[in-house]
């Protein structure tokens, strides 16, 4: 259908549109017009991606700036899905417009997914694929080949040089699959085709890391222009991605390997001195003169790039004491030895970077300046030595990354040495964490560089937490309700077992047999009544294991087994995918199954349980983080001191966003239905931190339930939903009220109505409130739980006596620490 938002013609590839999609598009447009950032929460399964793409493509095609879209998602499958949507959209557009627009849309993912080289692509690990590919495609390999030496090259890569550099693939949209096929047909490397075409694309779809991880961003995203529209989809975990991209862990093992790498380098230098002294001399000369191989350093085949953010790169020449290759290697060795010495300590150390640097200098005479150049110097050396088995140098590279980071950043980072893996362990297995505590550091260049950054997800409540944590300003923040003609999902909060004992996964009553039995009974009841699949989320692996073994002892598992197959997620990815496969099979044919998984595991983040794959989702306990983690504690402290976010607020926000993720897993569309059970008394007070579309469906009667009451409600719900939903049901009076989707005429009616409303004295009231307004019409039946304080993380209920146990414990502990 084609409609207008203000003056902008939008082509939407479906005959019907959901009201929330329309509202979402209006807000997007406002953000783009204003040239700022926004945070938008759109219920899962309401066609977020297609709304986003239709609006932005319409925008870029309509206005003369032709702003490019950079769409970032998390997983391969999400990227592929988005590409497919884009392809369908472009096809629809050309059908409607009657001509094919000059348009390119490409996705980029790692070499591992896009490689065509017959032997390289069979490697299991992405790092090995990268390393082997580099060995085949590095600049010096080509030079050697030109000199007539016999070296291995990748024909797929070299073929690209025969093509026009700005037209490696024809215009149009390529899905990853499509790109692979095109590459195979034309014998050209899909990975490099996509990468080199980045700057010629109208739409780029790739993973977060290409923008957020400075190691990659520097190389891949450097040339993107300032007016690009950046979208982070599924962004509820974006702060963690940011933090991870600047954090690094070192172990004794990696240091040992790094030493070996340094020794290898030393040997290679000796060899090269004997055979080809000139090359080293050339490198040296360049470094002396401070010549930065500006473009070469960012070349596709670079061994590693600088791990720091572009603004923090030093522009001067490499310090004199690491100019010579052999001096640099000695420097690295000394640094590694120092780190090894630090690892010997048997108690926990927390240290700021400046303190680390001063101690380092005292002991080894290593200064900050050369340390900062480590990553760059190593890259240059590796290139000069023409090393091909680069994967051997990975640990050394890690050390160099660490060196550069710690010498660059003073605040927002903490060095934590943990000599033992657990509190009980007696054999030391030290890990040196260099932890980034400030999520805003990594994302800052993105906000500064691009005029519009859109952060969106199905579950990104409370919205104001993100601008706070990531330190940016928004043009608008919105959360949309889900318009439904009838209730297709039933969220409930269960706080008591049938015996009226309150249930919680809280620290103190964790292993209380009464609680465990009640959880068991809850699962058993739902196993009985739910058709097909049930997904159960536990706060942690440890807790899940404990509960399962206790259930085993109580005979609960045997009872459940008579109704459903039970499968368990494990930390091992392969085991989990096997379990998942079995689970799916069991749901396809048979009584269905139960999948027990963990709220922060792989399943909770990336796997959809649509339709019969998930009819009930059970959250057994609120997924609070393990607060004993020192990194978390440090981060909490940092957030408190720098962004005024209280520990409890952050922890409960974090728990609730994970719970919301889990709940969202089972509802993937409007024709889907499911039961959502939050089983922990602590959810009672926190329910208004859930995304608006879920929170609004939790009516007063659905909270504080006992197992029996919940079961009764669920049964009634299942009976009422017995018939599949017909999309776009007609309301009896034929008006637009109470519709879950509109056709073009209904949309235009709505627009007209809205325009006239705007004229009526309600000055300044613009489309921004379209959804509130629309909400009144669509979900008219539901009680409005939503009020101004929803999602406000500072609401008073945080301080009720009923506060979560963990939170109390932390608070107590922190006090003790302060006193002690």
């Amino acid at each position, binding site marked *: 259908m084609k409609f207008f938002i203000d003056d902008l013609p939008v082509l939407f590839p479906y005959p019907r549109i959901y009201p929330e999609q329309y509202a979402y598009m209006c807000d997007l447009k406002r953000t783009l017009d204003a040239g700022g950032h926004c945070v938008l929460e759109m219920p899962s399964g309401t066609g977020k991606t297609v709304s986003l793409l239709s609006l932005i493509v319409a925008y870029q095609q309509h206005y003369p700036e032709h702003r490019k879209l950079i769409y970032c998602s998390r997983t391969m499958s999400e990227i592929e899905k988005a590409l497919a949507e884009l392809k369908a959209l472009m096809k629809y557009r050309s059908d409607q417009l009657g001509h094919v627009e000059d348009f390119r849309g490409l996705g980029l993912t790692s070499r591992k997914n896009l490689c065509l080289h017959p032997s390289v692509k069979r490697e299991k690990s992405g790092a090995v694929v990268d390393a082997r590919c580099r060995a085949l495609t590095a600049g010096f390999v080509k030079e050697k080949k030109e000199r007539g030496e016999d070296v291995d090259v990748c024909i797929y890569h070299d073929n690209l040089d025969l093509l026009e550099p700005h037209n490696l693939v024809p215009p149009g949209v390529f899905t990853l699959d499509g790109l692979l096929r095109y590459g195979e047909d034309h014998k050209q490397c899909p990975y490099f085709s996509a990468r080199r075409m980045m700057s010629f694309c109208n739409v780029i779809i790739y993973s977060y890391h290409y923008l957020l991880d400075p190691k990659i961003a520097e190389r891949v995203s450097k040339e993107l222009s300032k007016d690009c529209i950046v979208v982070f989809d599924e962004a509820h975990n974006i702060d963690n991605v940011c933090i991870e991209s600047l954090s690094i862990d070192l172990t004794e093992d990696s240091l040992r390997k790094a030493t070996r790498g340094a020794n290898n380098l030393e040997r290679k230098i000796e060899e090269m001195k004997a055979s080809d002294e000139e090359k080293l001399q050339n490198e040296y000369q360049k470094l002396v003169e401070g010549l930065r191989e500006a473009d070469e350093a960012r070349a596709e085949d670079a061994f590693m790039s600088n791990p720091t953010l572009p603004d923090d790169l030093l522009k001067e020449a490499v310090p*004199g004491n690491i100019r010579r290759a052999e001096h640099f290697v000695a420097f690295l060795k000394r640094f590694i030895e120092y780190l090894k010495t630090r690892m010997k300590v048997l108690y926990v150390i927390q240290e700021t970077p400046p303190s680390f640097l001063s101690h380092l200098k005292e002991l080894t005479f290593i200064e900050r300046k050369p340390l900062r150049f480590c990553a760059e110097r190593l890259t240059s050396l590796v290139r000069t030595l023409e090393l091909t088995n680069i994967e051997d140098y990975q640990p050394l590279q890690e050390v160099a990354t660490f060196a550069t980071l710690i010498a660059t950043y003073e605040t927002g980072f903490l060095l934590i040495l943990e000599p033992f893996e657990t509190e009980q362990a007696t054999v030391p297995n030290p890990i040196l964490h260099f932890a980034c505590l400030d999520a805003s550091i990594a994302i800052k260049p993105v906000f500064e560089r691009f005029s519009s950054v859109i952060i969106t997800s199905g579950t990104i409540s409370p919205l104001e937490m993100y601008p706070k944590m990531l330190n940016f300003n928004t043009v608008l923040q919105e959360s949309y309700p889900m318009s439904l003609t009838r209730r297709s999902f039933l969220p409930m909060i269960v706080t008591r077992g049938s015996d009226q004992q309150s249930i919680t996964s809280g620290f103190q009553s964790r292993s209380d047999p009464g609680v465990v039995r009640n959880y068991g009974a809850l699962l058993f009841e739902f196993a009985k009544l739910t058709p097909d699949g049930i997904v159960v989320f536990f706060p942690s692996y440890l807790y899940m294991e404990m509960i399962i073994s206790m259930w085993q002892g109580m005979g609960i598992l045997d009872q459940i087994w008579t109704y459903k197959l039970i499968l368990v997620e494990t930390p091992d990815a392969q085991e989990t995918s096997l379990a998942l496969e079995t689970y799916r099979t069991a749901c396809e044919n048979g009584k269905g199954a139960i999948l027990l998984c963990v709220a922060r595991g792989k399943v909770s983040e990336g796997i959809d349980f649509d339709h019969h794959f998930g009819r009930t989702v059970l959250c057994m306990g609120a997924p609070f983080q393990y607060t004993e983690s020192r990194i978390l504690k440090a981060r909490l402290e940092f957030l408190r001191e720098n962004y005024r976010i209280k520990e409890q607020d952050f922890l409960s926000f974090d728990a609730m966003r994970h719970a919301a993720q889990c709940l969202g897993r089972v509802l993937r569309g409007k024709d889907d239905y499911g039961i959502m059970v939050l089983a922990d008394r602590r959810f009672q007070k926190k329910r208004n931190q859930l995304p608006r579309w879920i929170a609004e469906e939790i009516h007063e009667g659905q909270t504080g339930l006992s197992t029996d009451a919940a079961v009764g409600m669920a049964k009634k719900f299942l009976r009422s939903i017995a018939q599949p939903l017909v999309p776009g049901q007609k309301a009896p009076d034929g008006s637009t009220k109470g519709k879950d989707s509109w056709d073009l005429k209904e949309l235009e009616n709505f627009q007209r109505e809205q325009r006239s409303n705007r004229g009526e004295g309600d000055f300044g009231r613009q489309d921004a409130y379209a959804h509130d307004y629309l909400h009144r019409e669509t979900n008219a039946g539901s009680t409005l739980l939503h009020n101004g304080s929803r999602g406000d993380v500072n609401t008073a209920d945080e301080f009720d006596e009923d506060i979560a146990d963990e939170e109390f414990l932390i608070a107590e502990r922190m006090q003790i620490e302060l006193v002690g």
Partner: protein
Amino acid sequence: MDEEDSVGANKCPVCGSDPRTHPGLRFKINTKCYHRICEGCVDRHFSSGKAECPVGGCHVSLWKREWRTQTFEDLKIEREVEIRRRVTKILDRREEEFETKRDYDDFLELREELVMNLVFRTDVAATNRKLKEYAQANGIKTDPTDGPEPGAKAPRRKDMAPDAADQSGLIKGLKRIVIPEAKAPYDPFMGMPRTREYYEVKESYITRVRGKPAEAMLAGGYDFAQYMDESLLRAFAGLGVFIEDEMSARDNTAIPVPGPT
């Protein structure tokens, strides 16, 4: 250290104690021969003053205080750091002291070069000589044993400019030493002549107030001579001033008369 090394060499080379059988065994090293022996052996061999290193074949003589705990697992690094400490102490220049960053970098490389020479035992004699020369030229005390003898004049190389910052010529690119020009003392009279042309101040005056010596006038640091001087100056200062002459003199200098030069 190579891996085989670290496993086999964990025993005390003197008494053969092994930390695996003697938990808590601690080792000490010295920075002369870098032999590593257990604490017990240090106590036994060095309790009565200077002695030879007990490791077979090593005849370095040491004091007990020269044995210390090891910082780095790798003794090569331990030694390198020790060398570095010595060299850095001698060649201790900051970036601000150099003309350009390039010069500073060259200095850093030079230092690195010297350290590496000592570490890998190449050109040791030459390197040590350079360091010593530099130390003497710049008046840096190195070791109490080989420092410059008191009163010994630092050798000056003839080809060095006298204001070069490093008289030994080892380090290049240092900023020249700038001796600030001595400033004239402050003159409150701004160059006014203080010659007494019309009067003379006597060595002392007898002050009398109504015929009696006035002791009160001497109290509180009151300098009668100065008072007299000032009064006399006021009285006679105007005598030599001829305003017209001065005016015309000023006008002449202010408006230069055009003419052949």
